[in-house]
C-alpha cells in the first residue's frame, strides 16, 4: 500500500491538477506507443515476409528457423491489435485535448499556435484511426479470401499504403511532440514555470526528498542543498 501510494498517488500537487489532469501523467502518449509500435511492426513483418526468398540465407546463417507464414502471422495479428488499441488512443487523446490549457503566445517550429496544432493533431488522429481500421479490414480480406491460396499473402499496394501511412504518422507524431515539448500541454514542470513556480519546490516527490540530502560522491556545484531555493521570476 505504501508502495502504491508512492508510485501512483505521488504527492497531492501531482495527483490532481498540476498538469491539468485528474491523474499524474497523461495516458494518451502511452497508448501511442502501442498504436505506432504495433502498426509499424505489422507492416515491417509483412515486408520481411514478402521478401522472404531473399532472406532465406540470412535466417539460415543466423540459425533462426523462419517461415513466411509465421512472419505473415505477425503482420496480421499485430495489425488487428493496432486497430483495437487505437480506438482507446484516440479516445484518451480527445479527453486530454478537452482538458488542455495551452499558452497562447508560443508558436511551434511548424509555425502554428497551440490551438491549431491540437486541432490538426485531433483531425490526424481520427484520420489515422480510420486508415488503421481500413488497413486491418483490407489485410483480413487478403489473408482469408482474396489471396488465401497465394504464397505472398499481401499485395504490394498494401505494403506501399503502409509506408505512406508511416509518413502521416511521422507528421502526426511531430505535432504531438510540439504539444508536449513546445507548448508544455499537460507537462507539470512547464505549467509550474509558466505560473512562476520553481518545479524543484513544487514537485515534492519521495525520490526528490531523498535527493535533498544526497550522498556526497564528488564535487557538485548544483543540486539540492547547494544554495538557497530560487523562485522563478515571471
Amino acid at each position, binding site marked *: 500500500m505504501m508502495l502504491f501510494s508512492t*508510485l501512483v498517488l505521488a504527492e497531492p500537487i*501531482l495527483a490532481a491538477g498540476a*498538469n491539468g489532469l485528474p491523474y*499524474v*501523467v*497523461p495516458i494518451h*502518449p*502511452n497508448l*501511442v*506507443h*502501442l498504436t*505506432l*509500435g*504495433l502498426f*509499424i*511492426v505489422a507492416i*515491417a513483418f509483412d515486408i520481411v515476409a514478402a521478401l522472404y526468398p531473399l532472406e532465406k540465407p540470412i535466417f539460415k546463417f543466423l540459425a*533462426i*528457423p523462419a517461415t513466411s507464414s*509465421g*512472419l505473415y*502471422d*505477425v503482420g496480421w*495479428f*499485430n495489425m488487428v*491489435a493496432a486497430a483495437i488499441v487505437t480506438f482507446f488512443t484516440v479516445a484518451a487523446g480527445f479527453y486530454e485535448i478537452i482538458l488542455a490549457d495551452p499558452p497562447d503566445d*508560443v508558436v511551434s*517550429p511548424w509555425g502554428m499556435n497551440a490551438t491549431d496544432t491540437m486541432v490538426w493533431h485531433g483531425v490526424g488522429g481520427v484520420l489515422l484511426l480510420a486508415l488503421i481500421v481500413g488497413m486491418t479490414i483490407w489485410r483480413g480480406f487478403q489473408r482469408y479470401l482474396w489471396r488465401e491460396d497465394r504464397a505472398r499473402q499481401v499485395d504490394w499496394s498494401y505494403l506501399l499504403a503502409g509506408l505512406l501511412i508511416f509518413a502521416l504518422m511521422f507528421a502526426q*507524431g*511531430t505535432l504531438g*511532440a510540439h504539444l*508536449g*515539448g*513546445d507548448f*508544455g500541454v*499537460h*507537462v*507539470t*514542470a*512547464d505549467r509550474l*514555470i*509558466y505560473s512562476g513556480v*520553481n*518545479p*524543484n519546490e513544487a*514537485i*515534492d*516527490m519521495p*525520490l*526528490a526528498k*531523498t*535527493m*535533498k540530502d544526497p550522498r556526497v560522491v564528488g564535487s557538485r556545484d*548544483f*543540486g539540492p542543498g*547547494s*544554495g538557497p531555493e*530560487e523562485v*522563478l*521570476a515571471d
Partner: protein
Amino acid sequence: MFENLLPPLNNHNLPYPDTIHPIVVHFVIAMVLFGVVCDSIAYFTNNKKLFEVGWWNMVFATISIFVAIIFGQLEAGLATPYAAAAGDLNLHTLLGWSLSALLAAITGWRYIIRLKNPGAIPDAYLGMNAILTVIVLFQVYLGDKLVWVYGLHTEAVVEAAREGLLK
C-alpha cells in the same frame, strides 16, 4: 574536434528537432507487452500461430532496446536534469540497462524453447514474462515522469535551465 560535426543545440537542447528516445521505445514497450499477451493467450488456448507472433515480437523488442538505450544515453546526457528530476533519471537509466540484459536473456530463452518445441512454452517462462511486464511498466512510468512531470527537453525547462533559474 568533434564539436562541429553535430548541428548546434536547439531550444530542446538537442542537435535534432525532437527527442528520438521516446519514439524508439514504442518498439520495446509495444512489442514486449504484445509478445507477452500473445504467448499467454497461446499458452492457454494452445494456439501455435500466436506462439510464433509472441516470439517474433520479443526478437523485435530485443533489437530495439539497444537502439533505445543509445538514444536514451545521448538525450539523458543533454537533459540538464534539475534536482527534483535527477533521482528518477538515474533510476530510469539503471533500469534501462538492466532491462536490456533481462530482455536479451529472456529472448534467448524463448529462442531455445522455440527450437526445441515451437508449440509450447514452460510455466516458468510465463512467470518470467509476468515479472518482465511489471518491470517494463514501471520503467514506462519513470520515463513518463521524466517527460510529463519534470518536462526534460521541453522548451520551458530548457529555457529556465539555460537562464540558471532551474538547477
